[in-house]
């Protein structure tokens, strides 16, 4: 409690320095206080999904969702290793968040209105644009539209079957759907050449491609026929913690846009003249203090984990076995859908 007045004073000074209109005071944040008190972040992740959240041979968690948690830990505590992971099943993901067993959920979960409105959770941005797409043999087709006249293997009665049928019908295109009892049968049929394509979510397809007989002869399309954005999720209340969760993700994306990487971040911090970069890295603006965390929050996150592109390429992108192109998960300036609001 004794540090609170100091914090308030500091915040007031910094906000005035930053030219802000109102002198705001630091709202209470039980979650941030708890994280600092226990010395680590509690992060809920997927039980095991290639590229998103999995344990490697050494037992270390990796993946794009795991990377986000590490960045958040680096921003709050200055150390990307100070995070503990709670793997969660589909049924468990909401209760562990609601009951406070985890601070944040980064678990490949689609953002929807009804979840937002009824589960007492808030989605803090998008770290992966998931969506249904197709795996095809290399060079056969580049986008879903090119599949006109092709045959597609699907599991009978699945959402994917209905989605695909509707999508092509709406566009006056023809595909022949070949039904199988199970997903595994449909993949095996595709692999043996019975059909031209197999369809599923882009993240799942990237993992399944590796299982094919000749993975490198097949490619996962990056254009999707459905939109299932996913991102870090928090409980309702505690707006200050939500602020941190949201802006660490924004910060990773902004860092990519500004060209700040884990390799050049020291140099950027020391010599960049760009106001955006200086505020992002905490050289000026005092943005960290406004949220009640160190001012070098994004410097630590980028230094220790990397910007969005580094994280993506390492976990699901071309630098990983999944070899997923950026697609929609590319900056808006490069044809994707990712952007960060300005760091101003």
């Amino acid at each position, binding site marked *: 409690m004794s540090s609170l007045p100091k914090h308030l004073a500091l915040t007031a000074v910094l906000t005035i320095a930053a030219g802000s209109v109102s002198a705001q005071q630091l709202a209470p944040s039980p979650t941030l206080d708890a994280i600092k008190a226990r010395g680590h972040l509690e992060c809920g992740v997927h039980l095991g999904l*290639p590229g998103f959240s999995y344990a*490697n041979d050494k037992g270390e968690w990796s993946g794009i969702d795991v990377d986000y948690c590490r960045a958040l830990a680096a921003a709050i505590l200055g150390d990307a290793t100070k995070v503990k992971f709670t793997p969660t099943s589909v049924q468990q993901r909401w209760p562990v968040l609601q009951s406070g067993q985890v601070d944040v959920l980064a678990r490949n979960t689609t953002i929807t209105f009804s979840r937002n409105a009824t589960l007492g959770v808030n989605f803090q941005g998008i770290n992966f644009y998931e969506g249904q797409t197709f795996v095809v043999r290399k060079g056969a087709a580049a986008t879903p539209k090119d599949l006109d006249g092709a045959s597609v293997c699907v599991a009978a009665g699945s959402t994917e079957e209905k989605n695909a049928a509707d999508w092509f019908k709406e566009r006056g295109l023809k595909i022949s759907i070949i039904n199988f009892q199970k997903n595994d049968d449909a993949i095996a049929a595709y692999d043996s050449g019975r059909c031209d394509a197999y369809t599923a979510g882009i993240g799942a397809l990237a993992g399944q491609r590796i299982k094919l007989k000749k993975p490198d002869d097949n490619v996962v399309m990056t254009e999707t026929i459905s939109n299932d954005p996913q991102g870090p999720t928090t409980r309702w209340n505690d707006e200050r913690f939500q602020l941190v969760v949201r802006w660490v993700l924004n910060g990773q994306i902004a860092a990519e846009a500004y060209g700040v990487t884990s390799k050049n971040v020291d140099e950027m911090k020391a010599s960049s003249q760009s106001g955006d970069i200086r505020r992002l890295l905490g050289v000026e603006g005092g943005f960290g203090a406004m949220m009640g965390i160190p001012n070098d929050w994004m410097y630590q996150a980028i230094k220790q984990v990397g910007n969005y592109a580094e994280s993506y390429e390492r976990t699901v992108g071309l630098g990983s076995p999944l070899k997923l192109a950026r697609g929609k998960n590319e900056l808006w300036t490069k044809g994707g859908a990712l952007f960060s609001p300005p760091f101003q």
Partner: protein
Amino acid sequence: MNGADAGLVPFGPGQAEIASDGRVTIIGPRHGRRFARNLFGTPLDAAITLACAALLVWAAIPLLRWLVLDATVSGTTRDDCTGSGACWVFVRARFGQFMYGFYPQAERWRVDLAGALLVAVTASLAWPGLPGKRPLGLAALIVGPPLGVWLLHGGWSLRPVETREWGGLMLTVFLSVYGALLALPLGIVLALGRQSRLPVIRLIATIAIEFWRGVPIIAVLFLASLLLPLILPDGAGIDRLARAVIGLGLCIAAYMAEAVRGGLQALPPGQAEAAAALGLGYWRTTGLVILPQALRVSLPALTNEFIALVKNTSLVLIVSIFDLLGIAQAALADPAWVGKTWEAYAFAGVIYWLMCFGLSRWSLAVERRGRRGVRN
């Protein structure tokens, strides 16, 4: 008979050992004859035997090729697995995780020690004629469980290891052993309660048994792991692994209670009456006369429940606890090993089978000795 023996020639690896007069030199003439009579007694028997043998060979050869002959053992990555057989490189790379989960490398000796103690105690209790078994068993029952928890969980000069870092085979064994330690005494108490002459106790025991026997174990695990933290005030949460053990233990206790009740009902009423005639009260009658005999009778059924418990532990995966099966499945999510599904499940399956087979052998040994005791 000679004609039947001649039919044995195309069957089995020992065929070359059968002499022209029908004598089998390796396993002896009597065994050979009985063997031949059983398998080739009639033309129909012979046909069935040959069909089964063909089926076995048809299934076994590809399996053997996949498991051993064409399998890759050496190497470090999936690229080393070029053969058409199993990629045991995967299991080798993950072996530590399959056994210990995410238990810290430097502390794994504690798990080994706890496991060795467990094996030593169970083996010596099954050892026929070992002196001082009763005090040893009693001491193991009193000291063992807390000692095991201390070794695994740490504290008191040992580095604490959170239960979320536990996993793999050690977790499966932990859940089985502690589940049984909870279930067996509770099951006995419930069974005695259900036989009690006092209506209130009988009612309570019956309701408890029927409730826990009636709810699915999955529902209990969900309740324990998801609803309890939501209901209980923040921070008062019991460790999630402890919740799973308690949930499993309560369910299995109800099943065990019924197994013990079967044993109790199998005893002739004369036993209790004779004990009463000797002036023994309820507790001494139960403890000295009834229970030892009832437990001996219900041992096969209890073993059954215990084996069921071992296999039911894999249900904890749905509450995100990585037991042996869970850790094998989780390993498949590593892009470095995606698609090694058969290897993961074959390995886990063999371990489960070995555990359950060992258990049933152990109980058979105990049973045999028990029967001898009765006869003497």
